[in-house]
């Protein structure tokens, strides 16, 4: 009896293993670093790769690919205005525990076909799942409206993106996705994940980081403002005074 159980366990592990090892991702990025310089105006990241397998393409549902790129997360407060004594005032507030500053999902087909709800919950892939919201205060019953509002506001600003045709897949083997990073980008590690799915379930995944950093003058000014705030403040004032004086001098010279 015991031997039988061990056998079953062994067989199950084998199946799990083979399911994982059957298809693996080999990935390439057009850039693993994004440099924010003074004239930074957004950037396009091309994520391409191939599916490595030892065996022929499995039968059944076609291979689909989901790519996510996620910027640094921070807690945010979502406030709602209400009319009180005739004027619009912020009354209710819900704190969202963790919301990425940027989040893009690109898929090879409609999200609901490519990914089942349970797998979405498990891997936190779609935009609403990527936001972690803790309990709202007791007096707010419709806390979902607040996270919806967050997604709506950030989607309008192009900070949250869902592109259901953003990944092209060839022969179930080669895939390629483009993600457009907006000009208003916050620096940090951008976590990039690639999922292969069949019939809605994830069969393989791969993760890598894209390094987004300020460079040159931007880097120097930012560091100075944090590490040597007094000097930075004095420098700002000096520039202001010099510019004021300079304009005045130039104009009086011109009038003469």
């Amino acid at each position, binding site marked *: 009896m015991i031997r039988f159980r061990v056998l079953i366990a062994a067989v199950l592990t084998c199946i799990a293993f083979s399911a994982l090892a059957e298809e693996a991702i080999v990935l390439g990025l057009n850039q693993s670093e994004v440099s924010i310089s003074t004239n930074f105006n957004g950037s396009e990241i091309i994520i391409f790769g191939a599916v490595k397998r030892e065996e022929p393409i499995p039968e059944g549902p076609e291979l689909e690919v989901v790519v996510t790129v996620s910027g640094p997360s921070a807690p945010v407060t979502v406030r709602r205005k209400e009319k009180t004594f005739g004027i619009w005032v912020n009354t209710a507030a819900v704190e969202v525990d963790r919301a990425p500053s940027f989040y893009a999902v690109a898929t090879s087909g409609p999200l609901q076909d490519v990914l089942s709800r349970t797998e979405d919950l498990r891997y936190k892939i779609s935009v609403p799942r990527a936001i972690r919201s803790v309990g709202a205060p007791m007096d707010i019953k419709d806390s979902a409206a607040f996270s919806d509002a967050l997604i709506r506001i950030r989607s309008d600003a192009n900070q949250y993106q869902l592109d259901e045709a953003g990944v092209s897949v060839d022969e179930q083997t080669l895939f390629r996705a483009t993600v457009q990073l907006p000009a208003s980008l916050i620096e940090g590690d951008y976590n990039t994940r690639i999922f292969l799915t069949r019939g809605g379930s994830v069969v393989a995944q791969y993760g890598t980081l894209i390094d987004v950093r300020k460079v040159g003058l931007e880097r120097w000014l930012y560091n100075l403002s944090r590490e040597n705030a007094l000097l930075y403040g004095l420098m700002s004032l000096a520039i202001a005074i010099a*510019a004021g004086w300079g304009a*005045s001098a130039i104009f009086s010279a011109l009038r003469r």
Partner: protein
Amino acid sequence: MQIYLPIAELSVNAFLLLGLGGIVGVLSGMFGVGGGFLITPLLFFIGIPPAVAVATGANQIVASSFSALLVHLKRKTVDLRMGSVLLAGGLVGAAAGVTIFNYLKSLGQVDLLVNLCYVVFLGIIGGLMLVESLNAMYKTRTGKRPPRKKHTWIQKLPFKMRFRVTGLYISVIPPLLVGAFVGLLAAIMGVGGGFIMVPAMIYLLGMPTKVVVGTSLFQIIFVAAFTTMLHATTNYTVDIVLAVLLLIGGVIGAQFGTTLGTKLKAEQLRILLALLVLIVCGKLALDLLLQPAELYSVGFKS
């Protein structure tokens, strides 16, 4: 031409900022207002985070006010003595104002109070100025002389001082109080306070309009510089790239503004400033009264 702002962490159009700075600079030179009550809401509007807008606005005000002040100094329309007395009061008021501001912040709702402050003060000042300057204009048209200033309780106060440029011999208490009050409001509202200072000097202290502008600018520079340093060292919200773009426009605008200001009559100048103040007031009042398109707003956890 897009440019990335290192502190605000977003990309904006450089020419938009130059233009914005220029418009505010013209007003600054014309009316002796720092323009903070204009530049701060305008920066909000183009998507600059409020904390960065307030702090950087203060830095820009230093530049455009300094540019305009130099013109006034050359023209000898600055009462340095009166300016110093106002400034002494102003710094005390500003320090008190910052304390009150932080207390309100701890209660939440500081945005609402700042907005209400704006609407109330802009409304009162704009309204009073408009009525007064229209009256003055009507009287000069019909040839009536304006009535001589009455001797009020202000003349009876002690510690009198002679202000030569202004041509006044009054007690230092009213200017100190005016300075402190303006400093207090300026700190709460995040502006230099010129739009309150100018009418206060004209109507409360009885100073001639020509001297008022230069003297107000003198006082604003110091208050704005103080605010800039405070923000730079505590909140790290002064964006130097944003400031440079705004102030290039600002200083050039200020030079044109001062020239334009000398071509207009004092009453006309006051009517224009009154109208400008009322327009901003109306806009802010509408924001409070009308239902906003987006009821929700996203802010970082304080």
